């Protein structure tokens, strides 16, 4: 038995929760410091006994029963209670956001593709304009051919 070993036991012995063993008793007889420390701790415990607490109020049980009844009356948590978990809720929000984003992005892509392939009915003003725009290069060539014809006429009739 050494001083450290008996010091660990001192709170229990000083509080009266356990008795000294024979070895501990022998150590205290031979070690004045430990004996003094134990005596001081016993005195401290006696002082600490003076700190008392108030009796529970008569309303404690009544209020507890009321709170328990409220708790029992609450509906059993269904699958929606998972949404109350913050991490899960945040994860689901992100997944939902990404999903909605992807849906609209794909919709735009497909709309863009549809716009490119729209063909107006022939004979309408819009279709004529589209035809002019699409065949702009070809019509330019026609104009050059017209110029060539004029030159040939000049050569034929000097």
């Amino acid at each position, binding site marked *: 038995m050494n001083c450290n070993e008996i010091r*660990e036991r001192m709170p229990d012995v000083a509080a009266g929760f356990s008795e000294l063993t024979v070895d501990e008793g022998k150590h205290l007889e031979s070690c004045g410091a430990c004996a003094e420390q134990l005596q001081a701790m016993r*005195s*401290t415990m*006696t*002082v600490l006994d003076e700190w*008392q*607490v*108030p*009796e529970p109020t008569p309303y404690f049980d009544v209020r507890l029963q009321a709170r*328990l009844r409220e708790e029992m009356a609450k509906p059993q948590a269904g699958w929606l209670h998972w949404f109350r978990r913050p991490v899960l809720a945040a994860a689901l929000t992100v997944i939902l956001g990404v999903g909605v984003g992807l849906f609209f992005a794909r919709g735009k892509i497909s709309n863009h593709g549809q716009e490119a392939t729209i063909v107006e009915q022939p004979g309408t003003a819009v279709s004529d304009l589209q035809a002019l725009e699409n065949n702009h290069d070809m019509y330019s060539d026609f104009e050059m051919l017209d110029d060539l014809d004029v030159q040939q006429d000049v050569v034929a009739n000097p």
Partner: protein
Amino acid sequence: MLMAATTPQPSSAFSPAVVGGEPSDAEIMLRAKVGDSSAFDYLVQKYRRPMISFMYRMVRNAAAAEDLAQEVFLRVYRSRASYEASAKFTTWLYRIATNLAVNHARDTRHERPEVQVSLDEPDQESGATLELPDGNLTAEQVMVRRERMLAIRSKVEALPEQQRLAVVMHKYQQMDYKQIAEVLKKSESATKSLLFRAYETLREQLKEFV
């Protein structure tokens, strides 16, 4: 009226006596888990006083102590379905209580009123009016006794949080080292050392009252 002892006195319709010996609190809690409300009532009655006194010594306010003690039992009730009897029931109970008390102390550390002693007004924290428990004591003697109690209380409250929890559980709840260690999630030797240091500090601080 004050209570010094924390001896439980359960009184409910539930009778713990069964063939083969008295069931442990963990076994009673397992009955509560499967819907036996009288088993739950029994545990409430058994631990209501220890819980209130533990909370009172942790939060310094009688009304808050009762609220928090109720909250402990509500949490036990809510968690009954997930209860596993792997540890002692009281370890589980005090772990819930410790978490609540620590959180409450942190949330309200700026709200605490100064401790004042007056013969004419009731105790601001306990709400109790000054009583003369001993007919032989004069009002002045009662006043001195109360001042002394408040001083002792303030010394315990001045301890670091873990030391204070350990002292309250050891000295006032009469829990053993192993159980305190489990509640505080420390090793048993670390708990012994924590308690020794706490009592040494109190010995120094309370010298004048010895």
